[in-house]
């Protein structure tokens, strides 16, 4: 079931398929599109294919069939061009432990093609993601997971790319940080970013996402605008899909 | 409980992928070193045999006992297969003659510098460098690695006494690593047997002791690795520290100790000693010449017809005996010089090795060399043996010379001009009762004392490191 939303897609999967060398079918003809100003949330168990999809958008692996497109650019054909248009935050942000937060930001901003930032820019973006000022010039060595996650998000913001990929960005964050993150996503959406995130957090997905997809065994088994799921018990729905019900049965 | 812990440790080692790789390589290197040792030993034996044969032949070709000389050879020993030590650095033979004291000359390395470029590899080298590295490699993350992987807190959420845990870790790792090493060493011995190396019972005893001390050395490095792992929180740090400690112990301290001792205790060079000896010899010969002149003068004055041929021969014989007396004098002086030299050398050596023994690697190498009889004592032993042989040989030659003097007679006369007389008798030399050089044998009793010191040191280092690991682990923050 495709959703018809006006405007060109920023992130787009077209019958995206990945079969690994050991024969495992990780992604099976998956199609979806994320437009500017949209947040697309993928729900699913471990091994459902969420990370594989993100890896395909980053061209870390090549698709067996189909295409992943960023701003219309096919990622496995022109990976460098495509990746200039996307920022990425991983599940467990790992940075250089011997560098300070600012040094890490500076390095990755430069890799992202942004060379003009000043110290103040780094300071303000770190404050924006909620990292207190006394930590800015400390080495990453002693940072907690939440602090590192904030740095990762800051790096993504600094890249200022039209598309953002988030791989379980809130796992391991405390409730307050989770809430702050949610606000951040809202503001990024208003800036017009197209955001693709994978998550286990059903409740937050429901609150923040524009479109929610449930994946199981490499397939999207449900893909609905969040507005249409407003009144439904998403958790019950999720459990049903996981149990192998078809979309029709579940929605009914 | 203890059994479970030991079993787990054993399994962890035996199932790790690095285990198969490293032990394959270790076994290969040990066998390679023994293979090389055997073929080098065989080559040395061949060289020794031909050398001796050629020297005998040359001896038989000589025509007079007056200037007779021969060579004494250093005999290769099967133990050099395992520990070459100074075998290739010391001269292989010494010239035995009446003029100069015997010195070992012509070392294998100086004859064929190509072998000196990279040097030989022997079992002791593989044990010192490779096995020690291996020991550290398997233990450096014993404690901190478990903490990092999160298993340590889990283990201690159970009622496990820390002391037992550490002991089990040590014992498990020890069994897991030592058994394969022992197997490899046994294979090496099998190779020696198959190659038909003539090993006596004593050789086997020495080999057995060598293997034991190798294991002791291996253990000491294992425990040091364990100690470091209990001192550090992260395995990357303990790895770095272990590597630095390894470099220092194996590569730096042994050398630095000797160099430092060389600076602290000065020993005169052989050239200086030779110079002093030559100066003494020259003075004595000058004196001799003066004596001779006056003797000649007296004789001419006393008996007018003393210039007959018969009288000249007697005169020559007196000269000869005087000359011999002076040679004895010079030898005594030289012996004194060398005695003094060797005393100072002993002091230097003792200091050098005491400093080096801070490192278990030095203690091991010294113990291995002394077990194999290829340590510094090898030189001393041969020098003493050669001195004794030379005295025998010279006595023999002198006795024979009296029986059949050789030499030339040169006569000047106004009526016959100058002419040279050939020796009186010129027959094949009868060498049946000539003394032969018996290579000195190192008594195993003599090595025991030094061996005990080194073995004791290795045990001490192991115990200290284990005690350190113990104390560190008791206060280890397992989180």
């Amino acid at each position, binding site marked *: 079931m495709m959703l018809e939303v006006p405007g060109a897609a920023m992130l787009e999967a077209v019958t995206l398929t990945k079969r690994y060398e050991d024969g495992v079918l990780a992604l099976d003809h998956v199609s979806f599109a994320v437009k500017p100003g949209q947040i697309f949330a993928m729900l699913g168990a471990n091994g459902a294919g969420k990370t594989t999809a993100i890896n395909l958008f980053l061209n870390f692996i090549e698709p067996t069939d189909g295409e992943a497109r960023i701003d219309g650019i096919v990622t496995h054909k022109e990976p*460098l061009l495509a990746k200039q248009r996307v920022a990425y935050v991983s599940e467990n942000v790992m940075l250089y432990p011997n560098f300070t937060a600012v040094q890490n930001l500076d390095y990755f901003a430069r890799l992202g093609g942004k060379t003009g930032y000043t110290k103040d820019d780094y300071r303000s973006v770190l404050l924006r993601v909620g990292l207190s000022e006394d930590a800015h010039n400390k080495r990453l060595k002693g940072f907690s997971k939440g602090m590192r996650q904030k740095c990762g998000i800051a790096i993504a913001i600094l890249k200022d790319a039209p598309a953002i990929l988030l791989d379980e960005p809130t796992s391991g964050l405390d409730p307050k940080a989770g809430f702050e993150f949610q606000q951040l996503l809202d503001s990024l959406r208003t800036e017009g970013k197209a955001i693709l995130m994978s998550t286990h957090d059903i409740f937050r997905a429901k609150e923040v996402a524009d479109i929610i997809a449930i994946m199981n065994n490499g397939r999207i088994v449900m893909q609905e605008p969040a507005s249409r799921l407003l009144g439904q018990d998403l958790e019950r729905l999720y459990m049903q899909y996981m149990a192998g019900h078809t979309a029709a049965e579940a929605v009914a | 409980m203890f059994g479970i812990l030991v079993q787990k440790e054993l399994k962890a080692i035996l199932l790790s992928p690095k285990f198969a790789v490293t032990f394959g390589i270790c076994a290969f290197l040990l066998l390679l070193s023994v293979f090389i040792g055997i*073929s080098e030993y065989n080559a040395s034996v061949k060289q020794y045999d031909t050398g001796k044969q050629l020297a005998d032949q040359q001896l038989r*070709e000589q025509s007079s006992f007056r200037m007779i000389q021969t060579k004494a050879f250093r005999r290769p020993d099967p133990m050099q297969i395992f520990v070459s030590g100074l075998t290739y650095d010391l001269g292989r033979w010494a010239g035995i003659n009446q003029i100069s004291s015997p010195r070992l000359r012509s070392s294998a*390395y*100086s004859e064929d510098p190509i072998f000196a470029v990279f040097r030989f590899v022997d079992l002791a080298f593989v044990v010192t460098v490779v096995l020690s590295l291996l020991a550290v490699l398997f233990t450096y993350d014993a404690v901190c690695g478990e903490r990092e992987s999160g298993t340590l807190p889990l283990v201690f959420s159970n009622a496990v006494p820390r002391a037992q845990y550490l002991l089990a870790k040590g014992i498990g790792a020890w069994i897991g690593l030592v058994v394969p090493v022992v197997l490899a060493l046994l294979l090496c011995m099998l190779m020696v047997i198959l190659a038909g190396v003539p090993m006596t019972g004593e050789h086997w005893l020495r080999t057995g002791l060598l293997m034991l001390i190798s294991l002791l050395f291996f253990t000491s490095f294992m425990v040091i690795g364990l100690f470091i792992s209990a001192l550090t929180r992260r395995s990357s740090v303990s790895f*770095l520290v272990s590597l630095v400690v390894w*470099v220092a112990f194996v590569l730096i301290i*042994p050398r630095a100790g000797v160099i430092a001792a060389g600076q602290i205790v000065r020993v005169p060079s052989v050239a200086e000693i030779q110079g002093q000896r030559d100066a003494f010899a020259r003075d004595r010969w000058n004196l001799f010449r003066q004596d001779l002149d006056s003797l000649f003068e007296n004789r001419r004055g006393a008996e007018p017809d003393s210039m007959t041929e018969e009288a000249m021969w007697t005169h020559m014989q007196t000269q000869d005996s005087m000359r011999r007396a002076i040679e004895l004098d010079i030898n005594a002086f030289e012996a004194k010089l060398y005695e003094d030299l060797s005393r100072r050398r002993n002091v230097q050596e003792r200091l050098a090795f005491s400093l080096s023994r801070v490192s278990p690697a030095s203690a091991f190498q010294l113990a291995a060399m002394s077990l194999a009889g290829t340590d510094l004592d090898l030189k001393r032993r041969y020098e003493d043996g050669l001195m004794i042989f030379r005295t025998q040989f010279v006595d023999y030659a002198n006795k024979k010379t009296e029986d059949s003097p050789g030499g030339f007679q040169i006569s*000047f006369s*106004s009526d016959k001009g100058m002419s040279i007389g050939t020796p009186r008798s010129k027959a094949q030399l009868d060498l049946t009762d000539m003394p032969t050089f018996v290579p000195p044998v190192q008594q195993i009793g003599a090595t025991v004392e030094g061996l005990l010191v080194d073995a004791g040191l290795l045990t001490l280092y192991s115990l200290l490191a284990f005690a350190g690991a113990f104390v560190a682990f008791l206060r280890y923050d397992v989180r």
Partner: protein
Amino acid sequence: MLRTIIEKEIRDIIGSSKFAISFGVCAALILLCFVTGAVNYKTSQAQYEAAKAENLRQMEGLTDWFSVQQHRIFLPPHPLASLVSGVSNDIGRTTEVRGRGELNADGSRYAEDPVYAVFRFLDLEFLFQVVLSLLAILLGYDAISGEKERGTLRLSFSNGLPRATYILGKLIGSFLALIVPLLLALAIGSLIYPILGVPLSGIDWLRLALIILAGLLFVGAFLTLSVMVSAFTQRTSSSFLVLLVVWIGAVLIIPRASVLLAGRMVDVPSVDELASQKARLASQLMEEDRTRMSEFNTPPAAPGEDFEPDKMLKLFNTFMDSLADARDKQMAEFGGRLNEDRANKQQAQERLAFSIARVSPSASFALATSALAGTDMFLKEHYRDQTMDYQQEYGKFMKEKTGLNPGGRMVIMLRDDNENEKPKEIDPSEMPAFKYAPPAFAESFGRAIFDLGLLAFFNLLFFTGSVFGFLRYDVR
């Protein structure tokens, strides 16, 4: 972009505690090497001077050049030999010059001071080969696999970052981060020599610079090798294990094993065989000359002439000299043939040995540096040639002084019975001094250039290998 990566790489390496500890240790060892090298040189120099002085002193008071019996010359120590010992401690240094015949140097450092042979010296060559190569591995083994494990590789490649740029930046950055500090330590170390009063000539500085260059190329080869291995492995533990095995093989095993292998494959006649063949010819020639000697006779003094033993002796000595010359010529011819044959076989052996050994950068490094320091295995030959040249000069000098070359074994002197005038003492300083000339720079360089090139080639090879390995690396 490339610059950013290079900068980051340098900062990452230099800022790590790993670098601080390991480089600190290495820098201390480098300085220690230069200090012990300088001290060692000064000790050797003092010993050398003492031996030379002793040699002259023993001639003092002699009244006749004939009485000079044991004239020894010595291989002088070289300041660079304390840094790159090569075989300089293994070959004989003392040569007794007689005037004729073959010369054999005796008394190597290790044979005379075996206490040093037990653990050997700590020199720069050793430090580079064993310790600095380990340092290079330590800094490079996790270049790629470590970033992967840390997760930073994923983040980096979420950007439009070409792989070639990344690996290039890594290689250049880590190279600079290792080489520049090393160079600094080595430069400071080099200054220790003049500070401790060990003079280096202009050419020596050039040699030292080239030795250091060879060292840096060698370390660079190990660094690029480490990066290459890390670009082929997924986990740092496996890349380190692979590198350790390679290190043991390249540094400790291959060079030694290849020489031994070549030694087994090419048979070189032993020195004993040669010596005995020579000795046999010598005694045979001596025997022949003995008959000749017994036939020697000077005409009796003519009536009316004085009985002049001096004149007779002169005739006799000339006769003996000519015999010795003839013997020497035959011996030289025979010995030369034997030596040449052995030298040819040795050369074949050596060529084979070094061809195999050069599989390892460690062997190339040892060969290049010892050639540059003038302490490679040609030193033995070079020194012998020089002593032979000197012997000729010495023989000429003695002939001038005494009319005879003393190297003919038997010299008969007639002592003046007239004690009225005291005989004049000889002046030992008149004797030609042995001036050892180390191998010419061009010659050393010629021998080193191949290995220098080979080291550069290793760098290039591993460099390309890293790039190719990384282009297909799974960055996930």
